[in-house]
């Protein structure tokens, strides 16, 4: 770890972890930091459940004829998608790191609505229990997209139970977003102007907008789906006058913006890490800040690119295709500005920075292949192939999960007051990177050659690439298990961390003890400088870019 300020042992101080003991002090806490940890443990559990389904899929795809029946395989990919999207990726960074850090970064004692914050965790758990019951009862086979009329009329699996789980957990996401918006508007410390907000907070603000505006739409869509499944009135059934494409429109009106819920917080983390380990202010602060807002806004106008082959009007498709290309602009601004931040910076290679490098490279591949898919002619060729799978796993896993792991390592000392073993962490970061690419790069080729997604069997000529992908998935699984082990160990036995082990800027490091006390700060923090003032400039620069 980098050189540190001398600071007294943290053991003697009262902090949020040792302020109170016993299960009640956790399950009835309104401390945003403790709720963040409740979320951390719950989403980690769901991550491993979702991962188990992925293991099942990759094992099945080792051989062309497969291991499981078609029905079992359908359930495997459906439950993998539902759990990973709604119970891991959507809450991942916002509900854990965001919950922990947004109030600290703006100098607040808590989120605006601490009890609603706790309520959101309980709602998440109730939703999760519904989803798990659906798994135990035998699973769902509709795909995570719940497309009608298969889901509403024909599937004889536990669609309503799974949809209920997603419906309920959506409200936890809404409440988190609502809490962040109000907190960021109303609870900033003196001197913490909008132009001085850390980009982590900007990213979470943009994410919250999507959570608040998008999630209610999937909620009502799933209500309509459930009612239709009970009543068979035909609202999504084309044989009696219903419109199944309407379901797709409603579904993707949320679910496309939702993929930005699953990447904007990752970008937010990367901005912090890149600035800290380059010892430089972020290049073009306001561009990076507003690119998050731009992604959130444009994200609501591109859902139709999921419907290019669904019978949507060609002119609508052209408009959606064009706006989808526009999303690449703010995304590219971020990638270029992170790169420019590193240029002539004092770059060091601690674990969080390794994950940031991984993120930037893999997100770029994931983003650029998104442009292939936004191109109507190419999309027709690769729709519902492994090309799509590889594309969004490069963004969701190569992007978001990398950023999540980077963020967990970066703020681990802050959260636990302990240091993690750097050597093991660097090794694990490398294993994750190698395993990830070996898993998903072959899938680009498979998809381009025409292997469709969601099939249990495939022609023998695809076997070599599928075996490579399964081998990669095994390495990737190892890469996720290693941090689980050493982080758990370090939480109990790691050396105590000084207040600011990275010499990072930001209120959470500079003005709050490590680990923080219950109300985050010993004194009311006052902000007197712009964000990422690593060069120690006295004056505020014009942030025109």
């Amino acid at each position, binding site marked *: 770890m980098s050189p540190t300020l001398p600071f007294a042992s943290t053991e003697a101080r009262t902090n949020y972890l040792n302020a109170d003991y016993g299960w009640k002090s956790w399950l009835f806490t309104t401390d945003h930091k403790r709720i963040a940890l409740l979320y951390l443990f719950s989403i980690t559990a769901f991550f491993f459940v979702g991962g188990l389904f992925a293991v099942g899929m990759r094992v099945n795809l080792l051989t062309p004829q497969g291991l499981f029946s078609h029905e079992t395989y359908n359930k495997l990919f459906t439950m993998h998608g539902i759990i990973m999207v709604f119970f891991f990726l959507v809450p991942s960074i916002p509900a854990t790191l965001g919950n922990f850090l947004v109030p600290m970064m703006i100098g607040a004692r*808590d989120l605006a609505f601490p009890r609603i914050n706790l309520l959101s965790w309980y709602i998440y758990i109730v939703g999760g229990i519904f989803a798990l019951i659906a798994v135990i009862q035998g699973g769902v086979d509709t795909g995570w997209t719940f497309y009608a009329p298969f889901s509403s009329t024909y599937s004889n699996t536990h669609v309503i139970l799974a949809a209920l789980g997603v419906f309920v957990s959506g409200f936890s996401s809404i409440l988190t977003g609502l809490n962040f918006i*109000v907190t960021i508007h109303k609870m900033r410390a003196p001197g913490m102007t909008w132009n001085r907000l850390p980009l982590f907070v900007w990213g979470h603000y943009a994410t919250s907008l999507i959570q*608040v505006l998008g999630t209610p739409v999937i*909620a009502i*869509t799933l209500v309509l789906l459930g009612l239709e499944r009970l009543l068979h*009135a035909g609202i999504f059934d084309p044989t009696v006058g219903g419109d199944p494409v*309407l379901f797709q429109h409603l579904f993707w009106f949320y679910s496309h913006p939702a993929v930005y819920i699953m990447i904007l917080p990752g970008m937010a983390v990367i901005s912090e890490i890149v600035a800290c380990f380059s010892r430089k202010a972020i290049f073009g602060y306001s561009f990076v800040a507003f690119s998050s807002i731009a992604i959130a806004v444009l994200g609501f106008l591109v859902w139709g690119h999921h419907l290019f082959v669904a019978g949507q009007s060609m002119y609508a498709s052209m408009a959606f295709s064009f706006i989808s290309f526009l999303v690449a602009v703010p995304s590219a601004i971020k990638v270029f500005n992170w790169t420019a931040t590193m240029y002539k910076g004092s770059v060091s290679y601690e674990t969080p920075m390794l994950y940031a490098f991984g993120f930037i490279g893999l997100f770029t591949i994931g983003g650029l292949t998104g442009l292939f898919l936004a191109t109507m002619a190419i999309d027709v060729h690769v729709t519902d192939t492994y090309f799509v799978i590889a594309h969004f796993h490069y963004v969701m896993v190569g992007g978001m999960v990398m950023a999540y792991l980077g963020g967990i390592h970066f703020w681990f000392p802050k959260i636990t007051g302990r240091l993690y073993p750097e050597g093991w962490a660097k090794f694990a970061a490398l294993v994750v990177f190698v395993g990830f690419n070996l898993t998903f790069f072959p899938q680009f080729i498979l998809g381009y050659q025409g292997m469709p997604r969601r099939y249990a069997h495939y022609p023998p000529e695809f076997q070599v690439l599928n075996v490579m992908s399964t081998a990669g998935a095994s390495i990737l699984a190892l890469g996720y298990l290693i941090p689980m082990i050493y982080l758990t160990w370090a939480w109990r036995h790691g050396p105590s961390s000084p207040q600011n082990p990275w010499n990072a800027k930001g209120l959470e490091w500079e003005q709050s003890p490590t680990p923080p006390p*219950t109300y985050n700060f*010993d004194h009311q923090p006052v902000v007197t400088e712009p964000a990422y003032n690593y060069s120690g400039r006295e004056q505020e620069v014009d942030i025109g870019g």
Partner: protein
Amino acid sequence: MADSETILAAAHEPELQHHFDDSAQQLESSTLGMWVFLVTEVMFFGGMFGGYTVYRNMYPEAFASTSHFMNVTIGAFNTAVLIFSSFTMVLAVRSAQLGQKKALIAFLILTLILGCVFLSLKYVEYHEKWVDHHIPGPGFHYADPRYFHQAQILFFLYFAMTGMHAIHMIIGAGLLAALIVMAARNRFSATWYTPVEMIGLYWHFVDIVWIFLFPLLYLIGHTR
């Protein structure tokens, strides 16, 4: 830890929570939070209004035909009931602002009664639909066989939209009852009555949803 100023302020203002600097910040936060919540409600109902728009454009004649089976009298009366209940809600908020406890409780009770009148009449309407076999599903029956399936979709939307609205009314009635209890226990004062104001906003929102539902569901067949 909260600094000494905050602790002093808290002693004067019992409703101030530890993480806010002062009551003004707390009130602004609650108000913004409530408005953001109402935005999520707009999006929630918006999904159904979107579906309604699609099907009404697809099947305009069938939709005009079905609206003749809606009970316009009850619908119109209920519209008046809800508008009047919004008025009594405003008076309740005003009474809270002035610290008039008796008037506050009276107007809250009046609002609650009007809400219950609305729900009772809604029950009468639902019962009519049940008797006429206008509930979507296996027992559905429609007089004009040309429009059987399309009418079923409209009745599906009718029950989804008014049902979701009625659920919001029931939640609102529960919140009003809680307010009445709180008011009777002297929880509110002229300086702190935030829950009355917030639930007032919610109540107005639910009314406005009905203002849109009534013409879209009941009156579309009556324009010539």
